[in-house]
Every structure is written in structure tokens, then in C-alpha cells.
């Protein structure tokens, strides 16, 4: 079997496409040409991997979580340590790739959206490193709940613009970034942070993030001499998960699970589990699953994790859900917080709240596995940004 997605028009089955204002179509077509030529250019690839090694600190370890494995009593659990990337999350892999493309296109200004602030920080860091002007749009709610990251971005020389519209979270930050891009498209590259948006973003961001899964494959072969039985990762827009999953999609023995934010429950507005509860539609340039009301208005979402708090999802995940190649499940705020504590106590690793969702699913998965099985979890980021929030939420749960 050969996976071979997307097609040349950027479609993953019936999902994907380019649903954007005409003003940016020419820029998208140019980006597509530049990405294709760069990605097939040995020199570009060498440069990309050079910066992944020197600036990001790759390869990241594939860490055997011995005490967690013991505590759960089943499959051997490995953590792919994207939390050890420079700036603290997988987001920077994509940022390095797109910054190099920006230079190749002769643009000097980048705009980005951010939810948790991780993509914003990573964008600000590459902008500083490569001498690019950088504007980051961030919802006001997110600026509050991820305050340390706002200062980090500013320190790195980025201008952080608060977005006061609508739910004041990631969706509105993307709207604001797109509006800036539409206005300044001649000089500006939109450095989108996940596998969402119009073609070529989903395939381009996947290509830059696939290094996660490629390293896992190599590292596990070396250590265990075989492929994993399960892959587990959290899905917001879907970039760390597709980065881990993509190199394994053709390996039929590998079971793949994406974990969405179940929030407080299954009612619309209470969660951000787009694939589990959504329906197809068009948002932010792509046809994909969405959380929306019956009139096609995009719903508000809730998750304890700002990075998962988004009513859309990458079109490739919609395709993988429909074909059944990947199974999507949900984990509640509370389960994620429990896993956040558990990993901290058992392994001395404080995860971000986003991958805490993936970790929480282990409590359901591991009892169905045997001790010979191997599970790899994408530990997409570290929890420094979440300490304040986690403390508040844990106090509420412990007292409430």
C-alpha cells in the first residue's frame, strides 16, 4: 500500500482545498511552487536539517518511561521528547522550515497566530534568528492564561497583538493573522502553526513535522529492533500528531490514536473535539471537520489546554478519520490534569497540558495491551507555560 496523499490539488480525499479570498491566491500558488522546489532541493533539505540540529537541538530523545510503564502494568511506554526542543515544543520544527522558505521567497515580514503561545514563541525565535520582522496575533483570553509566553515573544523581538473579537482565543487569532496577510501579502508570509488552512499549508507543515516520526522509527528500530504497536498523540490542529503518524501510515501493524480535547463534556461549546463531535464544512481555507451550529456558524470551544482550543482540525485528519486509518478519542480536562500530575511525579517530566491529553489516554489503552507491546506517545511540549493554570485547576478539583 502507498498512502500518497494529498493529490496535486491539495486534497486528502474530499478534504482540504484552497478556500481563501482572491487577494492571497497568487501568494498561495507561489508558496506552493516555492515549497515544492525547496523540498526537492537537496541544499534546502540540508540547510533545514542543519538548523534542526544546531538551533532546535534535534534529534530529540525517544525516552523509555520506566516508572510509568510499571505503574500502568502493560505495554512498554516510550515518550518522544519534543518538550526538549528549543522553545519547548514541536512547533519550532515547522517554524524553521517556513522561515527558510520566507527567506527563499525574499520576504522580510512574518505574521503568525498563537493559542498556547508555543507557536508564537517558536515563530518569534526563528524571526530573531533569521532577522525577520514578526507580528503575532493572540486572543486576549489566551494572553491571560499563557502570560509567560507573551513576555517571551516580546523579549524575542516580536510584536504581540491582542485579539478582542469573538471567543478571544485561537480561532480569532487566525482570523486576525489572515486579515493582516490579506492586507500585506506582497511583503508578508503567513507562518501558520499547524496542518490546517489552505493548501499547501497542511502538506507543507506535515513535511516539516514528519521529522518526529522519522526519528521515532529509526530510534525504535535501534532500541527494540521493530516498529511500535501503538502511536498516541494529541490533536489540536493536528501538527505534532501528523508529524508522528505520517511515517507510519503505510505500516499496517501500527495502530494509531489521536486524542482530542473533551473539555467538560460532549455538549457543543464544552469541548474542542472536532473529529469526535464535528461535521464537515469550510473554515480558514480548508474543507474539514468543524464544530458548528446547524446554520454553519462556527461554535465556541472549551479546553483547559489553549493549544487544543480550536473548532477546526487539519483536513488530513478528517481523511484519516473517514478512512478509519486513525482512531480519534477524547480525554476530559480532568483526566488531562491527572496525567499532568502523574507524569511529573513518576518521571520527573512536566508535560504541557496538550500532550497531557495523549498521556491520559494511556489509562484506557494500557489495560488492553500486553507487556510485549510498545506504545509511543508524542510528548509535544513542556509544561512550564501551564504551571499557573494547572495549579488553579488542580486546587479546584481537589477542593471541589
Amino acid at each position: 500500500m502507498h498512502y500518497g496523499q494529498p493529490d496535486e490539488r491539495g486534497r486528502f480525499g474530499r478534504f482540504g482545498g484552497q478556500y481563501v479570498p482572491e487577494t492571497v491566491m497568487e501568494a498561495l500558488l507561489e508558496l506552493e511552487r516555492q515549497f515544492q522546489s525547496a523540498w526537492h532541493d537537496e541544499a534546502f533539505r540540508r540547510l533545514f536539517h542543519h538548523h534542526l540540529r544546531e538551533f532546535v537541538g534535534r534529534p530529540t530523545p525517544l525516552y523509555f518511561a520506566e516508572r510509568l510503564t510499571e505503574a500502568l502494568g502493560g505495554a512498554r511506554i516510550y515518550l518522544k521528547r519534543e518538550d526538549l526542543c528549543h522553545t519547548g515544543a514541536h512547533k519550532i520544527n515547522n517554524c524553521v522550515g517556513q522561515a527558510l522558505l520566507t527567506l527563499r521567497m525574499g520576504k522580510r515580514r512574518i505574521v503568525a497566530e498563537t493559542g498556547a503561545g508555543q507557536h508564537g514563541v517558536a515563530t518569534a525565535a526563528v524571526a530573531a534568528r533569521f532577522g525577520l520582522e514578526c507580528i503575532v496575533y493572540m486572543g486576549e483570553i489566551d494572553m491571560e492564561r499563557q502570560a509567560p509566553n507573551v513576555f517571551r515573544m516580546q523579549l524575542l523581538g516580536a510584536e504581540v497583538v491582542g485579539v478582542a473579537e469573538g471567543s478571544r482565543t485561537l480561532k480569532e487569532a487566525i482570523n486576525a493573522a489572515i486579515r493582516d496577510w490579506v492586507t500585506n501579502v506582497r511583503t508578508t508570509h503567513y507562518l501558520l502553526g499547524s496542518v490546517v488552512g489552505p493548501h499547501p499549508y497542511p502538506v507543507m507543515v506535515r513535511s516539516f513535522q514528519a521529522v518526529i516520526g522519522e526519528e521515532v522509527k529509526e530510534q525504535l528500530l535501534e532500541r527494540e529492533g521493530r516498529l511500535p504497536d501503538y502511536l498516541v498523540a494529541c490533536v489540536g490542529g493536528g501538527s505534532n500528531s501528523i508529524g508522528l503518524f505520517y511515517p507510519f501510515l503505510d505500516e499496517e501493524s501500527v495502530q494509531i490514536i489521536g486524542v482530542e480535547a473533551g473539555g467538560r463534556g460532549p455538549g457543543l461549546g464544552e469541548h474542542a473535539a472536532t473529529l469526535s463531535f464535528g461535521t464537515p464544512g469550510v473554515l480558514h481555507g480548508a474543507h474539514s471537520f468543524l464544530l458548528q451550529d446547524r446554520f454553519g456558524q462556527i461554535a465556541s470551544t472549551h479546553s483547559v489546554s489553549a493549544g487544543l482550543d480550536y473548532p477546526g482540525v487539519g483536513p488530513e485528519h478528517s481523511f484519516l478519520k473517514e478512512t478509519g486509518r486513525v482512531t480519534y478519542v477524547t480525554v476530559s480536562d480532568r483526566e488531562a490534569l491527572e496525567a499532568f500530575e502523574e507524569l511529573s511525579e513518576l518521571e520527573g517530566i512536566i508535560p504541557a497540558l496538550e500532550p497531557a491529553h495523549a498521556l491520559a489516554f494511556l489509562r484506557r489503552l494500557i489495560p488492553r495491551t500486553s507487556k510485549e507491546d510498545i506504545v509511543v506517545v508524542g510528548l509535544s511540549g513542556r509544561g512550564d507555560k501551564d504551571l499557573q493554570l494547572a495549579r488553579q485547576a488542580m486546587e479546584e478539583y481537589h477542593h471541589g
Partner: protein
Amino acid sequence: MGEVATRMTALQRAGKKALVPFVTAGFPTRDVFPQLLEEVSRFADIIEIGVPFSDPLADGPVIQHTSQVALEQGVTLPWILEMLADQQARASVSVPVVLMSYLNPLLQISDGDFFERARRANVAGVIIPDLPVEEGAPYEIAARDQQMDLIYLIAPTTSQERARLIADRSQGFVYLVSITGVTGARDAFPAETFDFLRRMRALTNKPLCVGFGISRPEQVRQLAPEVDGVIVGSSLLRVIMEAPSDPIRAAQRMLTPLRRALDESWSPSSVINAE
């Protein structure tokens, strides 16, 4: 040929320019809107009605605001279509109605096809700002099946080659985006805007309407000679927004000088050009 194209051709023949006001459906309130629509349409050759969307990413602050207000009042696409069907029954809007909607609300119409229902509500054309030609073919066919016009946009950033393709496929008229940016009033238009309009005039025989940022009579006087019509949205909505006690009179006061400026742009040469 759809109703929009027919109207544009008739105006061209008469050497006249189209005034195309844009209003957000259900703004400022659901109750006032039908009457506002009726009044605005007296100044109009074609009227454009915006379907509010939660994430209007081609729009500036004014239309973001009016959309939000409309949504908070429970304006939905089915409500708009019913209101229009009713309006038409009363024959109070005598000019062709064009709906402007982001794609998603159209996709989610549950009882039957959007174009079929829109036709029954006497909608003459549709503008979908997040639908480029690459994705448009199925919608063009659906529109044509209902004798409706699917109107595409061309931006100053569009290459000549793409512009030719878009002009070719746009029905009714071609919507020229005056500047690189989102909707919203501008103080002045750069020389680039005029170059762009002339380039487009040389490129196609299709009727051309220019929109985005037009607010004042002198802008209308400057732009009108280059095109077949002007679209006025954000600035009209702003005066409606700022006159909660009498939005209809505010709209009339705003549109009267624009209409006059446009009618003064009548020129014998445009008659000759249209022949």
C-alpha cells in the same frame, strides 16, 4: 444570462453606472431591516445583502461588527431567504438581489440545495468571498441551473493570466477589489487602484464593479469612469450603525450624494464603448 447580467448590460447600453449598496442582513435589527432594504434599494441598481458569518476573514472592523450584531439577533440564512421571498411578494425591492456569503453557511443549508432555495427567494446572484475559481466549478454549475449569476472577485494582486480566467468565468459582473486588503473605508485610493481598473477594462468585456473602501462622492466620481458600477458597503453600514434612532434617514442621506455623483459620471463615450 442571469438577471444581474441583464441589468448590467442594460445600464451599459444606456451609458449609466450601477450603484450597488451592501447591507448586512438583519442589521441593525431584524425588525428594521426589511424597511431599510426597501429604502436602500431605491438608490440601487443592484443590491448586495451580506449573510452574517462568525468568521468573516475578508472583512474589516465594520462588517465584522454588523455580522456579529446580526448573529446575536438570530439572523440565519433560512431567515434571510424567507424575508426575501416575502419582500419580493410585496414587490418592494425592484432591483436584482445578490447575496454575499462565506461558503460555510451555504454548505450547511439542510433542507435542499442552497441555489434552489435562493432562486425561490428571487435571489439573482451570489458572491462567495472565500471561493476562488479553483474551487468554484460545482457552484457555477449549480448557480447556472437556477439561472443565477455566480460573481467572482479579482484583486490587485491577481496576475493577468488568472484575471483573464476569472473574468471569463464570472457571471453577471466581475467584482474588482479596489485595494490589497479587507473591506473598510479608505481615505484615498492609490494610483495602483486606477492602473488596476484600467488593466481589467482592457482585459475583458464583462461588466466591472469596483468595491472595498468606497465612501465619498469624490471617490465615486474618480472611480466610476473606469468601471460599470461601484459597490458601497462598510461606509454605508457605519452611518447606519451610528444612527440608531433613525438608521433609514441616515442611509438616505449617505446615498443621495453618491447616487448624484454616479449619475454625473454618465458620459457619451461610455455609450460608445458599450456598443
